């Protein structure tokens, strides 16, 4: 029995319909995925900046020093009991775990993949008679979809 196959026009129309359906679907997948990733990174950066600012308030004034750009990589931050934005031994029991690839592989890979770093821009102003203020810009940088992102916040710490 002879069977009629699909004509070229039918195939083109079918492909056009498929493309019309799939382009928004794939872009929806892509857009929503990127938004989720952006939101996750932004939340992490904002939370980290807040944590650093709290830690700066609590740490000795003279120990607040500049951490120049490009900054300190979070996944490779020094095992410093005094100041480590994630492993904060001195002021909080939270985050007492050091970020290592073996112990915290998920967080470690997240930090590595996005290249999260922190930098501190410290300006020390003395008004005399021990009246000093440090203006500290907390800079969190990371990579996102091929772009260098930055989140900035500022904190003033008085010596008094």
């Amino acid at each position, binding site marked *: 029995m002879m069977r009629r196959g699909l004509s070229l026009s039918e195939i083109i129309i079918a492909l056009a319909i*498929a493309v019309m359906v799939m382009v928004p679907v794939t872009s929806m997948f892509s857009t929503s995925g990127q938004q989720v990733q952006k939101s996750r990174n932004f939340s992490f950066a904002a939370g980290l900046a807040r944590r650093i600012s709290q830690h700066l308030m609590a740490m000795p004034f003279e120990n607040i020093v500049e951490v120049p750009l490009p900054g300190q990589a979070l996944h490779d931050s020094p095992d410093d009991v005094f100041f480590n934005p994630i492993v904060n031994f001195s002021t909080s029991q939270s985050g007492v775990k050091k970020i290592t690839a073996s112990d915290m592989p998920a967080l470690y890979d997240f930090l590595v993949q996005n290249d999260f770093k922190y930098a501190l821009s410290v300006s020390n102003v003395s008004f005399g008679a021990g009246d000093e203020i440090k203006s500290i810009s907390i800079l969190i940088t990371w990579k996102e979809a091929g772009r260098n992102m930055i989140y900035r916040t500022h904190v003033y710490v008085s010596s008094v």
Partner: protein
Amino acid sequence: MKAQFDEFTRRATALLNEPGILEKRPAWQIVKAGAISLAPVAENAVTSLEPEIALIFLLASTFTGAKRDSLLKSLFGAAMTRLPSDNFIRLMSKFSQAELKDNLLPFVYESGPRGSVACFVAARLKVTLATEAFQYFLSARAWSPTDLMNLSLLVKPEEASALCSHLEKFVPANGSKVLRDNINEFRYAVQNHLAHEPMLPEIADGETSPPPSAPARAGEPMRPPQPAPVTAKPLAPISQSTPSVSAPIQTNRAETAAKPNLSQKIPEALPTEVPAEKSEGPGRPAQSQHQSQAQAKPKSDSLDVALHIPESIRRLLLPVGLTMLFLTLGIIYSTWYFSDPEVMTSTTPATAGRAPSQWVDAVSQRPVTAKYLAADKDFRMGELFLTRDKFAEALKLFEDALAVEPAHLQALVRSGYCRMQLGDNKKAAKIFRRALSADSGLSSVNLYLARIHLAANDNAAAEKHFRAEFKLSADLTSGMELANFLNRAGKQNEAMELIAELQEKHPGKMLVLAPTGSENKPERGGDQP
């Protein structure tokens, strides 16, 4: 005479054993000479010689017209009583369509093996008939399903629908049921293109010659005629197998599938030239060919049934399939995209040791350069001095910031503010205008300019900037400043309306216009907002 026939048979056999195109084989001229010598006894030759040898005799002879037709009819009549060999059918293809129609098709009318074989051979030779001819064939005799299939191959494809319409009108209302069924089954076969290849007719035991085999490879000698062997498995004679014409065509097809050894696949196209046949033992068993067809035929039939998908659904298969494919790819992509970073091993930092020259601010999505960050450090220090009203120190730091990054607008505005506080209103106004030209939406800049113009008693310019600031920020400070200015400028009604409007927006505050007079005039341009 017998010696002549034997001599011609020897020459014809030699011809058949030679490779190449028949008319160009070395023995062709010898055979032609022999055919001329046999011309006086042509009738005897046709009946006495083996069919293939007789056919070569006719091909090589010079008979024309009625004589040639008569000899051909005589030969075909004798040959069609049994299934002719493959070689015989190939040699028949040397005759023209007209000759075949005139001398072969009359046997198709006959019931019995000769009619079935003639129909099969005609289908094999791709003889086609006019639309009007079929009604006579169909009404001439009872037709077995195999014969009907072979007969349907004689229909020109382009005339199939016309033939079906023609036969629909021809079906006799009062005719025999057998004839009606014949026509209906034939129409069904033609309409649905059920037959693809000629099917071996069902003929009785002892009426078969070596079944047609696959075409031999070119260049190999043709096999000389052999005596017809009897098939290992006896076949029912056509006279005994009464065609079940009353049964639906599906039943007949099922019967065909169930009895595959009764039909056999034939090579689709006959070669144009007669190729030499592979010389193998006489009578390659028909059983093996029947068996091979038994394996092939039911498969295709069962596929026909199993894959009988409606056209509408088959048309949807491609778009639906593509959609499913894209969806699958999308799901796979998204699964990978959202996969746990844990699975992404051996990732490395993108940058190491060197700061990029530019970032994108995650809040404002504006570019932030390294120069801007360096200037921002001075700006932040200047802000600290500003908190202690140390305008000179602050101004120095703001200007340091601007020296690093002139585009730092906040430092620019602050430097203007410091100059205004330090009494340098002229330079402050210039700086503020520069800031507004860079960004007309900067808040407070219009207010500072208004104060500077007010201090210079330029009420028109002051009013313009007061209104611009109120329009821009629409806050209580700029509103009160505008209302007080209007009150002092003699526009009490407008000032009262504005106060009422502000009061409505800020019901928790008691808003009162400042008394007019010089005691309320700011000395240095006003407080820091």
